[in-house]
């Protein structure tokens, strides 16, 4: 026995273009967002794109000039600019957590011992326990990418940007999509409304638990309650740019609503490597000089050694790494 399901817009009856990935469809004729069970979905919003191709080129230029300072990057070429409307779920919740536990820490205790000549002050550390009984009560917006997997470059960073600019979203307008934003590659959601709510809940639970664990040495009880105050489907315009420098490809992702760089790769040139290697040697030499001239206490060379080692850890990393990755 078999059964057949039709894919047809429940409002204007025109056929829906379906794609095995999508959980929300937009009717090509009337633009209405439709859930996969055929019901209408109203909370569809969009962060409007404000930049064009030319501005994208300028943003890339500025980014490379600013972050590629001292590297001598000249003659790069932009090879691919692909704007994508990326789907996000913004799950709004009131979350409340009550947790009980204890915190262990140490207090210093000073006391005076002995009499006469032997009189002296002794400092000792005492372990102290403090009961913790606290609440977390907050309104939150959790943002999830509406896609499984994540081949969208920089998607992890976009979440934070979407959360910050969520209030600027406007209701989704299908005419605008087919008009001014037609160059955008439109991605729908692979995650259904129900799944988004569930996954959002898991994020809140995990976050509150880890905050409770941070506040306590041991948590005895931790209980979270949440109530949903609205789940929105928000599209954010992301420009994915590829550029070539010395035959190698690098990527930059730009958020179209603000024009800020989400994440970008910058080539590491020989000049950059030489600068950081020289720096490593300078710190080594500088630390040596300090411990030679100011070495009347054993702490000085030890501290200088540790400082030089920590700095060297990073300067040497810069000497050897394949490329740099920068957030905006």
């Amino acid at each position, binding site marked *: 026995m078999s059964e*057949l399901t039709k894919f047809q817009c429940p409002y204007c009856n025109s056929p829906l273009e379906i794609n095995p990935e999508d959980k929300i469809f937009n009717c090509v004729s009337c633009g209405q967002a439709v859930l996969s069970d055929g019901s209408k979905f109203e909370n569809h919003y969009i962060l409007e794109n404000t930049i064009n191709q030319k501005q994208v080129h300028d943003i890339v230029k500025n980014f490379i000039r600013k972050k590629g300072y001292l590297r001598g990057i000249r003659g790069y070429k932009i090879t691919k600019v692909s704007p994508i409307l990326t789907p996000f779920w913004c799950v709004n919740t009131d979350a409340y957590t009550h947790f009980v536990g204890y915190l262990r820490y140490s207090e210093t205790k000073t006391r005076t011992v002995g009499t006469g000549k032997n009189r002296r002050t002794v400092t000792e550390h005492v372990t102290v326990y403090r009961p913790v009984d606290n609440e977390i009560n907050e309104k939150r917006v959790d943002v999830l990418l509406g896609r499984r997997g994540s081949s969208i470059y920089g998607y992890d960073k976009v979440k934070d940007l979407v959360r910050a600019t969520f209030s600027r979203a406007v209701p989704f307008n299908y005419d605008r999509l087919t008009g001014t934003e037609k160059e955008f590659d439109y991605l729908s959601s692979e995650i259904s409304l129900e799944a988004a709510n569930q996954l959002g809940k898991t994020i809140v639970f995990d976050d509150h638990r880890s905050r409770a664990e941070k506040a306590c040495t041991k948590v005895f009880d931790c209980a979270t309650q949440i109530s949903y105050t609205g789940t929105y489907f928000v599209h954010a315009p992301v420009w994915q740019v590829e550029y070539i420098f010395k035959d190698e490809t690098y990527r930059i992702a730009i958020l179209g609503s603000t024009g800020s760089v989400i994440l970008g790769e910058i080539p590491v040139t020989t000049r950059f490597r030489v600068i950081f290697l020289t720096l490593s040697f300078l710190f080594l030499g500088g630390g040596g000089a300090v411990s030679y001239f100011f070495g009347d206490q054993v702490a000085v060379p030890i501290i200088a050694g540790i400082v030089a080692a920590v700095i060297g850890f990073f300067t040497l990393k810069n000497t050897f790494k394949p490329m740099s990755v920068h957030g905006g």
Partner: protein
Amino acid sequence: MKSIMCPNCAAPLEMEDTQTHVTCPYCSVTSELKKVKELIEHYMLPVMYDAEQIRTELVGDILKHPGTPEDLHKSLKISKLDLKFIPYFIVTVHLRTEYSGVGEYATYSFRYKSGYRNIDFHPKPEQGVFDDEREFIIYAAEEINNELLNFEISTRGKVYFQALEAEKVRADVSPSVFDLEQAKAEAINSMREIHKGLMLKELAQIQEVRDQPEVKGVYLLHIPFYFLEFEFSGKKQTAILDGATGRTVITQIPRETSYWIQVGVLSFLFGAIGLAGIYLAVQQIFFYFGIFAAIAGLVFAARTLQLGLKTRYRETRRRRRR
């Protein structure tokens, strides 16, 4: 072949036995055929990179590293190239766990400053519920490959699986070692592990657990991977690249001899400074200077070796769940 009737305009439609979706040529409404017995949703990612493009991607990634031969775009010779579709199950599990057992609470005594000097733990009966939903990606190929197991897969652009497409690009299709039920069981198990971890945080002793697993969605996805072998200065190197997105799963990085010499000289130099420092400190000549040189020199040498001797490169890795 199967014949069915379009549910919209009643036109006759023909579909392959393996096909699940069909678009009516008359009214262009797409219909989905569901067997009442559960149908495995089976997808594949199309191969978007051919052998030549995948070579360019590979060389590009290698060349970003220092000390690699500059003419690699021309000189790299690929001696072996296999394209294989690797199966992954993507399972969304909802689990509700009701538990009861012995929890703890504490009493405090001997007030001291902002806390207490003494803490006593007492058992108390405790019960609660965990109720949440997570997504699991289950690697389902027979050959164990940690790189593919930890690779952050992408499911973007998936289409219904068609064996013909794989044949067209002359690719092998690895069969899944799990059937649908096993994949579900695997995911439910992982979810139970997570809940067990949470329970152990709440309880000192678990006495009773009742859970209700529910699989909210499951599909099988075949992802094309290129397995490459190439030779460099007489040594065989290997690489794996994702044929759908062109990302490098893992590659070995061929380096020029001059690079090894540079790394060797550099780490020798730092190591020598460190050893000289130890000598100076032990001999009590320039004692303080010696201590500094010993600490910094040895750390620098170790770091240089650690970074310089890296021979493999991965573009992305899946982050492990807590």
